[in-house]
């Protein structure tokens, strides 16, 4: 199978039987390589691994973002700016120095509903005068003591508060449709078509049936805004644009109006621009895989996560192999009670349920709040420490059969020291199996680490790992709506582990001298 006959050679030249060029002799290493390269699955696995290594190690260098760099975005949030109600109940205002409490108010309403013009409360008798337009004056003993109204008199911005007499006169004028009125001790006023109250041509107040309340602290609603808003409400519009008179050119604020029929309130909402973390941002040109729940770029996280997963995998396997070779080598070479002791230790390790142990230790590190970086170190040591027995068992088995062979007798005869005999002459013969077992082991270590990180007990934030990226899927909203958060990480994980398994499988076949390929 190793020979390739070249008969007849080009040029018609005949090789003699003992010519070196007649057969191509391949070294065992070349043979293994040739068998490996013929295995299609192994080549596919190799390509997968190269892609993932380039993605994780070189991709992380090329991408302009950092592992824990957070991105921000502007979002528009609809905040309620003002609430508007139409005043449909009577309001009362008592004259200066008089009282008109809630009990006489009730008597008043009773009187208006029964159509009476007089009512009494305690010893006082009251007389009411219906001025029209839901406006009543209330007299007691000839004096004006209070008024009841639905249209409200507001004082203009920056003007002194209007007194009771002025308000009463204004409302009376409005009810009777007059355009000028005078109040005692306050002079004359005019009332224009927009229900503005003017004194000497200056606006001092206005009358309106709408109550406009600001919903934000420190925001004063201007008269102009109110008027425009009332016009919009009267027209039944749902969108309202307002340009402040003193605002710079073109600065128009847009508001949306919603009406709550139950509470009879119009809410005027303003879309405000807010600067927030770009949470679960959709894939875009800047972020090809979107952003995660903390506003970090997913592609970058994937690359750095790959680094963490691969580095952890390699370090753990190195720990496993070193411990396993030393223990297995000693055990297999010496035999006897040393072998017995080491193998019983191996048995004990086999028996310890490793997943529960890792979960318990992870939970303990959670409660101790171990620094994420140190935690990663502990994780590697732990996984390595729990994984060495299978390597030791394999190495011991191989060495048991190897040490009976003649070349070992030869090393003994030449007087080599024991460590040299074990590590120079026995262990190299185990290397093919070691390579296979560690390639397959890399895949399973990466899976274990990912599972732990998925459960929140392995690699922790701010470090990325494929497992803790996928753990976002525990939030069922993320699972259903944001595929780009967890599916790419799962695919990366699958490709890497599959790559190691394909290559490991190909190597096992290639190293196996019984294979007929």
């Amino acid at each position, binding site marked *: 199978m190793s020979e390739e006959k070249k008969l007849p050679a080009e040029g018609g030249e005949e090789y003699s039987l003992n010519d070196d060029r007649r057969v191509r002799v391949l070294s065992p290493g070349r043979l293994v390589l040739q068998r490996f390269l013929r295995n*299609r*699955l192994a080549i596919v696995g190799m390509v997968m691994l190269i892609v993932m290594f380039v993605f994780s190690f070189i991709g992380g260098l090329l991408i302009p973002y950092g592992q824990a760099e957070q991105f921000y975005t502007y979002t528009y949030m609809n905040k309620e700016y003002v609430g508007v109600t139409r005043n449909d109940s009577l309001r009362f205002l008592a004259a200066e120095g008089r009282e008109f409490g809630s009990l006489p108010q009730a008597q008043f309403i009773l009187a208006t509903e029964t159509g009476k013009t007089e009512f009494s409360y305690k010893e006082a008798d009251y007389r009411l005068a219906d001025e029209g337009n839901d406006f009543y004056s209330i007299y007691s003993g000839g004096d004006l003591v209070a008024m009841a109204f639905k249209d409200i008199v507001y004082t203009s911005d920056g003007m002194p508060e209007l007194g009771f007499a002025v308000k009463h006169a204004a409302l009376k004028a409005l009810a009777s449709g007059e355009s000028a009125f005078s109040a005692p001790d306050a002079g004359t006023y005019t009332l224009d078509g927009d229900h503005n109250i003017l004194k000497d041509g200056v606006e001092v107040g206005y009358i309106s049936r709408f109550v406009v309340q600001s919903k934000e602290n420190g925001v004063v609603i201007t008269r102009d805004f109110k008027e425009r808003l009332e016009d919009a409400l009267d027209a039944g519009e749902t969108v309202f644009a307002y340009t402040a008179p003193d605002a710079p050119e073109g600065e128009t604020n847009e508001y949306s109006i919603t009406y709550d029929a139950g509470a009879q309130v119009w809410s005027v909402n303003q879309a405000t621009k807010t600067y927030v973390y770009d949470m679960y941002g959709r894939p875009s040109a800047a972020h090809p895989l979107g952003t995660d729940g903390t506003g970090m770029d997913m592609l970058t996280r994937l690359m750095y996560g790959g680094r963490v997963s691969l580095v952890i995998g390699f370090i753990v396997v190195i720990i496993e192999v070193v411990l396993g070779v030393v223990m297995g080598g000693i055990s297999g070479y010496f035999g006897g009670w040393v072998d017995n002791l080491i193998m*019983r230790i191996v*048995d*004990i390790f*086999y*028996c*310890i*349920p490793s*997943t*529960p*142990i890792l*979960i*318990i*230790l992870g*939970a*303990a590190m959670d*409660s*101790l709040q171990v620094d994420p970086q140190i935690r990663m170190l502990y994780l590697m040591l732990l996984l390595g420490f729990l994984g060495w027995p299978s390597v030791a068992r394999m190495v011991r088995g191989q060495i048991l059969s190897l040490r009976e062979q003649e070349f070992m007798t030869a090393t003994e005869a030449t007087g080599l020291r024991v460590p040299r005999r074990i590590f120079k002459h026995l262990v190299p013969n185990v290397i093919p199996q070691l390579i296979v077992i560690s390639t397959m082991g890399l*895949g399973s270590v990466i*899976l274990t680490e*990912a*599972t732990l990180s*998925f*459960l929140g007990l392995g690699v922790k934030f701010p470090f990325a790992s494929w*497992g803790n990226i*996928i753990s976002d*899927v525990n939030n*069922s909203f993320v*699972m*259903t709506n944001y*595929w780009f958060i*967890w*599916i790419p990480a*799962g695919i990366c*994980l*699958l490709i890497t*582990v*599959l790559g190691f*398994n*394909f290559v490991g*499988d190909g190597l096992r076949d290639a190293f196996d001298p*019984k294979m007929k*390929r």
Partner: protein
Amino acid sequence: MRNFVIKRILISIVILLFVTLIIYVLIRCLPASYVDNMAMQLSTAPGAKSYEEWRAQLNAVYGLDKPMLLGWLNWLKEFCTGNLGDSWKYTVPVIEKFKDTIGVSFIMGLISLILELLIAVPLGIVAATKQYSRLDYGISAAALVGISLPTFFFASLLKLFFSVHLGWFDTHGLVGRNFTQLDAWGQFLDMAHHLVLPIATLVIISVGSLMRYTRTNMLEVLNADYIRTARAKGLSERRVIYHHAFRNTLIPLVTIVGASLPGLFSGALITETLFAIPGIGYTSYQAMISGDIPFTMFYMTFLAILTLAGNLLSDILYAVVDPRVRLS
């Protein structure tokens, strides 16, 4: 044979003692988060004792103030007399919680083992008989994909497609919302319906290794001399493969299946947790992360016993199935 079994059981007991000692020491070395949390909770009640006092009292109640070795000996004594203690988290005796939860885990494990065998053995044999064909590559690749799939990712994918998009199954739990209103048959169907996805996950994740094991063994058998002899006799290929080769492949298969029988009781920790199936795995995961020492101790010891039992069973079965093997 009898001497071998007795010797192995004795060794297993010694190993078990060390394993429980290691687990006990490990658990005791950890901060007893359960006691701490409980003391914290109790001390916030109006007029309560201080946190330190509660902690000291609780430690005494739960026997955590004794030295570790003494505590272990105490635990061992109780364990040997069949007293497994009371679970802290579930506030019932450990054995009661165990009885409640083991059933569903065992059924899940059994069904998936049967399905795995039904899928893996025929496919493994086909792959071996047609070595290096396209079919063989396909089956081997599929088996390796199954081995490489992370359980949690695959389970999430299944949930996304079958529960969210198609709406065929619930994402979590063992019983539906109207479980109590169903009759016995309806309750059975409801539970079966809820177990479809977890069992599918278990089967697909673990079918690969069994398939590869069958293939490897079948290949080894097919390379044996007696197969060449059978072919030389002029037997039909069918008869060679299904009569001569397959029977010999069964030897290692029976061994490995026998060895995995104790494992049926260990529960599938990750799968049960992902689907919130109240089996032994999910229950003990909850116990572990809340620091419930009696339940955790019991579960880990139980797992260790199952592992040892599996190893022993596999050795014995090997001798029983293959008369050439003699145990000594």
